[in-house]
């Protein structure tokens, strides 16, 4: 089932890199009919078990890097870096799902996992956070199977306020040779203030 596919993705894909397109759709506000959506693009990479990064390119540069201890968020326009302890920030965020869980049981500590029917040529698993306080309602992972290799095709995040974020991945490189811990060291740009709560 898709749970077995997810298990093999977690086990065999030690690291990965892909281009992504993210479309965030917000429910229409009271009295408005138009649903709002924002599209952004960039590159996603990860090395299990504790490192990942989202490098947003369009419509503006923004970087999220988890280096194993700290989760860094750098916004070039705001000239600011926000740093959080990774353990506090990860918990039940979708990125933790994809990039850091070592196997299914590690994932099942944080999420209830349910197999779902295949769609869009992908095998789907739904993950619901066990932490009721989480603002994330559920996450759906669409896994792509190419022969032996399993990669991630789509990640859909639904939050409790009706926000829906869909990340579609392209050109997914599984276990690329030149991807290691060094690519996840965040260096604070000159002249930018950093506050580490």
């Amino acid at each position, binding site marked *: 089932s898709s749970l077995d596919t997810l298990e093999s993705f977690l086990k065999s894909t030690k690291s990965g890199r892909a281009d992504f397109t*993210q479309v*965030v759709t*917000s429910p229409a*506000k*009271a*009295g*408005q009919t138009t649903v*709002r959506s*924002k599209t952004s693009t960039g590159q996603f990479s990860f090395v299990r078990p504790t490192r990942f990064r*989202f490098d*947003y390119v369009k*419509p*503006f540069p*923004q970087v*999220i890097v988890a280096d194993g201890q700290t989760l860094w*968020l750098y*916004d070039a*326009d*705001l*000239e*600011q870096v*926000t740093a959080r302890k990774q353990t506090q920030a990860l918990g039940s*965020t*979708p*990125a933790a799902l994809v990039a850091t869980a070592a196997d299914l049981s590690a994932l099942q500590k944080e999420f209830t996992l349910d197999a779902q029917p295949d769609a869009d040529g992908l095998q789907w698993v739904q993950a619901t956070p066990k932490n*009721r*306080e*989480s*603002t*994330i*309602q559920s996450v759906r992972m669409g896994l792509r199977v190419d022969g032996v290799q399993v990669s991630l095709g789509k990640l859909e*995040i639904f*939050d*409790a*306020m009706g*926000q*829906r*974020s869909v990340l579609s991945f392209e050109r997914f490189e599984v276990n690329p040779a030149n991807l290691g811990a060094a690519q996840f060291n965040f260096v604070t740009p000159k002249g930018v*203030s950093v*506050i580490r*709560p």
Partner: protein
Amino acid sequence: CTTPSRTAKALSAEQVSQPEWQGRISVEVNGEAPSSMSASFLLRGDAKNGELDLYSPLGTTLGALQWTPQFAQLSDGSKHQYFSSLEELTEKATGAALPIDAIFGWLQGRDVSTTGWTADLSAISQGSLSARRTTPSPEVTLRIKLDQ
């Protein structure tokens, strides 16, 4: 303040077609217990009746602030918290009490003065504004970049 009888979602007519701004906001508090937050946002309405939604880069909601003359509310989907003032509400959500009335003016390019804060609107035509609170301490730096 008392929990309102009517639900928070029943907005009056004039709140429906209102000015709105989208972009990114960062709030930095210096001093002994420094803190910093940054988020994407959607701001609607005015200082009397309005909404401020804060989102993470991945698109999930960090918090939804809503205020009317009767109440000031922060919700994040699982729980709603009520506050007696807009200052208290914004302090809970961003780490510092924000001068919402002045911010609405600054976003429209008007150099509204508000005690303790000085604003730099020199780049507002490119959608950038920053403001610094010098009193009361600790010092706070607010930055906003509007989506172009």
